């Protein structure tokens, strides 16, 4: 199953890309993730994750227009591929399944 395993951070990145839809590129992804998790996400970490996702074929990317604030460099927009969506769904299903089987008691304890 190597290659389809989805780490926690990678999952968040994938979801963020989906959330951002048409406007998902490095900076926006980082901002979105940062504001949602309240964590300080490093560019490096994010980029590593994006590269891994790309290698696994969960996302694709294409270059968009250049802007002045990027010093004339183009944005690289990310899109989640079908297999990416599938992997997300699988991951969600796995969790849902697990959630549904968690006994009420232990959940309360955990809540305490």
């Amino acid at each position, binding site marked *: 199953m190597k290659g389809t395993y989805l780490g926690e951070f990678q999952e968040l990145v994938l979801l963020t890309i989906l959330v951002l839809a048409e406007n998902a*590129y490095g900076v926006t992804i980082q901002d979105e993730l940062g504001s949602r998790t309240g964590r300080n996400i490093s560019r490096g970490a994010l980029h590593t994750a994006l590269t891994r996702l790309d290698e696994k074929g969960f996302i694709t990317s294409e270059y968009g227009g250049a802007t002045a604030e990027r010093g004339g460099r*183009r944005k690289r927009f990310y899109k989640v591929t079908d297999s990416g969506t599938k992997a997300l769904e699988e991951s969600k299903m796995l969790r849902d399944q697990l959630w549904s089987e968690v006994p009420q008691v232990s959940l309360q304890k955990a809540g305490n």
Partner: protein
Amino acid sequence: MKPSTGHTPPKWANRLLEWYCRPELLEDLQGDLHEYFDRNLASKGPKRARINFVMDVLKFMRPYTIRKLEILNNLTTIVMFKNYFKTSLRSIARNKLFSAINIIGLAVSMSVCLLAISFLVEIDSYDRFHEDADQIYRVKNSYQFLQEDPSYFASTSILAGKLIQEQVPGIKASVIMHRGFSGDAKMGDYIVPVSGIHTTEDFFEVFSFELLRGNPETALSEPHSIVLTDETAEKLFKGQDPMGQTFQVGNEETPYQVTGVMKKPPHHSHLRFQSLVSFATYEEKRKENPEETYWISWSNMWANYVYMKLEDGTSQEDIEARLVPINDKQNEKSDRVTINTSLQPMLAIVAGENLSNQIGMSMGPEGTWIIVILTSIVILSAGFNYTNLSIARSLRRAKEVGVRKVVGATRGQVFTQFIIEATIISLIALVFAYLLFFLIKPEFLNLDPDIQQMLLLENSPKVFLFFILFAVLVGFLAGFFPATFLSKLRAVSVLKDASNTKLFSKVNMRKVLIVTQFTLSLIFIISASIELKQYKYALAFDLGYDTENVLNIWLQGNDIDQMANAFASVPEVSQISRSAMITSVGNRYSETIKYEDPTDSTDLTYNFIDEHYLPLMGNRFLAGSNFESRQLQEREESIIVNEQVLKRFNIGTPQEALGKYVQVGRDSQGPRKLRIIGVVEDFQYATIQESIESFGFRYAPDRLEMLNLKIATTDVMATMEKLETAWNGLDQVHPFEATFYDEEIQRTYAEHSILFTIVGFLAFLTISIAALGLLGMGVYTAETRLKEISIRKVLGASEGSLVTLLARGFMWLLIISAAIAVPAAYFLFDSVILADAVNKANIGFIELFAGVIIIFAIGFLTIGTQTWKAAKSNPAQTLRSE
């Protein structure tokens, strides 16, 4: 979009990112970082933004962002080499004319450079055969009279050597030498002249000369011990065992005993000698007269040499620091003369500073510099050709570069390809240069006997390696500019419209290169013609006496009367006179002269002559008369002076001067008073560069060492043979040595003729190379402007006007070169090279402009023929195929 605030991310960080980041990731990453920077700029201020940027750049260094290792690229380069090689050869073969121009130009100039390289390698190899050669030093002296400029000597005093041996630590071994051992070795009736150096016993510890027989420690300890070189031993003993043999030298009573046989000093040793005589021999002779102590004094520093090998860890400075107190102490004793000793590394003797009284081979630093500079100019000229033609042709190569780049070549690869092409051309040129090198090598060696003695110019593997390295370097340098330029081209713009690229912006640089080339060629040719004129002038100079058909013969120790009689019997000899030396060739004897005022003295240059000398040489008398014939007299009493002596001491007219007394030096009986018996017209007794000062002819039969024969003959060879027979009748040991006075003078000014030959040859080379380059440019211009020419022609331009149009640009460049070169060459000679010469040929219009005219003619011919060809072409032919 926000307008730029002027703040940008730190450039170096940006570059760092570009350097390490994989190209495919770079744009995205860099863009993101810039966007962040912009935001941070607004929210946190420029300082924070910059720090963040740098931090981000650093944090991005991750395995996957870093470029593939360069070695992978290099691997492709190696694979590509074959391709580069092939395409280079194809390109060379395709452009035959350009390749030929480049190869010929480079080959010709490289041959000179090969000569220079082997010269430099050989000079550098001098004296390196000694063990720890870099630890061997020689004591040199500076000699300063009152506050005059000091002069520098390779020689020192025996005292200095002894003091150093006693007082200076850190010396492994040192040796004191005294030159001037020479005489005829006599073994019964068998006589062989030998010469050598007196040296103390540690000679073989300081130097690594090979002692074949004998004990290196004791061979030179005893008086009258002599170590012979194998060559001299063979000459003396002809196959017998030389060890322990004895022979007499000259008129000395004590015989010399052979205590060792050594290998002849190798060619690359600045010290060359036939034999070594123990220093004790010299000391013994000196001590015979205990009152005479000058030989061991601090100021007798003219014929002695001290060499030393330092211990490991001792430096030149250490020793020199120790020499200072010794110098000071000795100099306290004299109020007029300051003599300071210091060290000179042995490896710097041959091509190092100019010192007087050298003991062996040395040539001063100028020779090296002149050779390096001259050859660099020549190779530069050929390199310029390559650069120039390559850039001119780059329009054609641009498409090729475009295609290569489209197919995926990187800039570095295109660069490598062009560098390789240049290197291949340069290596092909090296092959031809190597052949030419063998042609010019003997010519160079034959320029001057000194050069022949100094250099062998043999080919060693080391030299050969240098040749190849040199060729590669030349290829790289010549190809560097075109390669950089071509590899910079952008594929898109080149392929879209080649003529649109910035190719023609390089036109100015090309012009500068051409002007430089021609300026240098012109300076060479002008220098050569000025040198030639100086040489001719020197030979034709009226010395004030007649040197024609005068044959000078060194007596070499033979009895003067016997020899004179022997020669007198040869009918072609019309007159014979005797003298101590010959004037006007750079030698001089001098002594102080005073008139009435005992505190007013000057140097008197003099020659000893007999009563036949002045009539034979034809010196003109202004007053008085010649010496009268006399036998060896008790004391010298008369002198014939020149006009300068009268002027210097205000003695009045020549008539008034007769009978007056001058004091010339001293002899054993006190001041030597000489009566003026004659005054001769001033004549050029020194070389013509020097001015005429006080001169006197003196009469001292015991000081005469040469015969001057006035020859009247039409068959010089036959006469010389007769003279030689006469000589051999009296002396079978020494070969007959005779030189015509005029030849002697020619030899004195040989430097002019050597310089003329060298510079003239280089002028020829640079002009040929520059003309080749011009030819290439002409061909190229005619080719690229063919359509333009055709259209002009169709519209009615005449062929003549077309040639003018095309040639005008080039002729302008030549005019600019001439405008730079003529004043430069004039200044060089007038104010630098000939500045101190008293008599010199004026630099005239012809010397300055003959070269210019020649170059203009050559330039016009090369350009003219090409443009004429273009102008003559049929417009219908050239325009049809559009």
